[in-house]
């Protein structure tokens, strides 16, 4: 009994987990920088492929920026649980007395802080590069802040289900891209509305609703997926 009393509470346990993930990421700054570099490079591909005409780029800019955000979230979500699965600390996490739901949420929060948040914060720079009209930049950042959090949560489901597989890389995109589509639809619709001068708030509100739904349900699926992957 005395040992159980000494076990940290759920809140402090999750904060410790979050801190651990962030420190691990900070020790390897290139891992944090890679998604941003990816973002910048893919942005540079579009003017080369579509031609540099500013008005044409401006038409496609909302979709381009959102699709790149989707892809970079997709590419990074594969790694959320992988190293911890390989060194066995994930198994310890499953055995821990704290609810897995909350600890999974800490992992996802760390993933979002490292990828989604940074991506949303630097997105105005890339938006200007591909001529997104300036009045839409605020909506883009707001949409990305909400949307990338949904993407991290959904990506976590794919990561949890495929973490035990040796060849999970391509599979995870097949599994979770269909779940990314609603976010893409509402995210780019918000930016397009802002460009056209219509209110974008309803679309942002729906993204927020999706975030609430994802926070409530995705950790359940992630926890179930981790249990399956560790048992397999």
């Amino acid at each position, binding site marked *: 009994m005395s040992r159980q009393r000494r076990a940290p509470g759920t809140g402090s346990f999750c904060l410790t987990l979050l801190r651990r993930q962030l420190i691990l990421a900070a020790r390897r700054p290139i891992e944090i920088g890679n998604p941003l570099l990816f973002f910048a490079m893919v942005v540079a591909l579009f003017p080369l492929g579509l031609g540099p005409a500013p008005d044409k780029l401006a038409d496609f800019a909302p979709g381009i920026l959102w699709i790149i955000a989707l892809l970079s979230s997709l590419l990074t979500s594969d790694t959320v649980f992988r190293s911890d699965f390989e060194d066995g600390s994930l198994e310890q996490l499953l055995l821990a007395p704290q609810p897995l739901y909350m600890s999974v949420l800490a992992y996802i929060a760390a993933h979002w802080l490292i990828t989604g948040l940074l991506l949303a914060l630097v997105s105005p720079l890339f938006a200007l590069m591909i001529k997104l009209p300036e009045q839409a930049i605020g909506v883009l950042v707001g949409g990305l802040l909400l949307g990338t959090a949904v993407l991290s949560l959904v990506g976590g*489901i794919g990561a949890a*289900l495929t973490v035990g597989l040796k060849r999970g890389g391509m599979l995870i995109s097949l599994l979770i891209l269909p779940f990314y589509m609603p976010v893409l639809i509402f995210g780019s*619709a918000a930016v397009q509305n802002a460009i056209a001068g219509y209110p974008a708030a309803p679309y942002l509100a729906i993204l927020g609703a999706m975030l609430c739904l994802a926070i409530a349900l995705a950790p359940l699926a992630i926890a179930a997926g981790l249990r399956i992957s560790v048992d*397999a």
Partner: protein
Amino acid sequence: MWSFFHKLGSPPWLFGIAGSILRWLLPITLVALAVGLVWGLLFTHPDFRQGNSYRIIYIHVPAAVVALAGYYVMAIAGAVSLIWKMKMADVAMKACAPIGAALTFIALVTGSIWGKPTWGTWWVWDARITSMLILLFLYLGVVALYEAYDNKEAASKACAVLSLVGTVNIPIIYKSVDWWYSLHQPASIKFTGESTIDASMLYPLLLMIVAFYGLFTCCMLLNMRAELVEREARTNWVRKLAGAGARR
């Protein structure tokens, strides 16, 4: 009551019951399919506007309806296997995925063949078409995930989680694409317009839908029997079964 549930957990019992259901369901389904096809394709009036091209409805609509229903059958079977740990529900869930994917594919292909003469295009990013395409991806995702696992028990559990997550996604996608396009595209092209379908066309269509449900069930039971034999290949009852088959 409870003994029924206990029996459900027994592979030989399920194998036998699936066989005896198939014995009467399969002929009925085949007859219904044949009657529905001949009735729909040969004995209904040509449509006032579309002429004979509308007749593809007798394949397109049943395939689409059953493809959507099949997803929910798969998800419910997945939920049952996760919640009550019924292994036979795993088998049912695994059996649904390829059939559902095939039906979704049929619905998409017939829809696009139908679209060419009536809309003048093979493909439109309409809400229904897009959500059917995503349904196909969801089915294929389940199939791919199942194949990726070596441990088939874990594979079924993982697929159950994935198909349950998909049930949340399908209505969201359907509504979202609807709202998305309400901005861009006037609702000129709708599958279910105000054109109420005439009774002479409706009855063969209803028969075909029933026949497709039967076809889905038959394929599912056949798949389940194959899966049961494969999973239980080392047990006595399968050996007996194989021996009986070989002697005959």
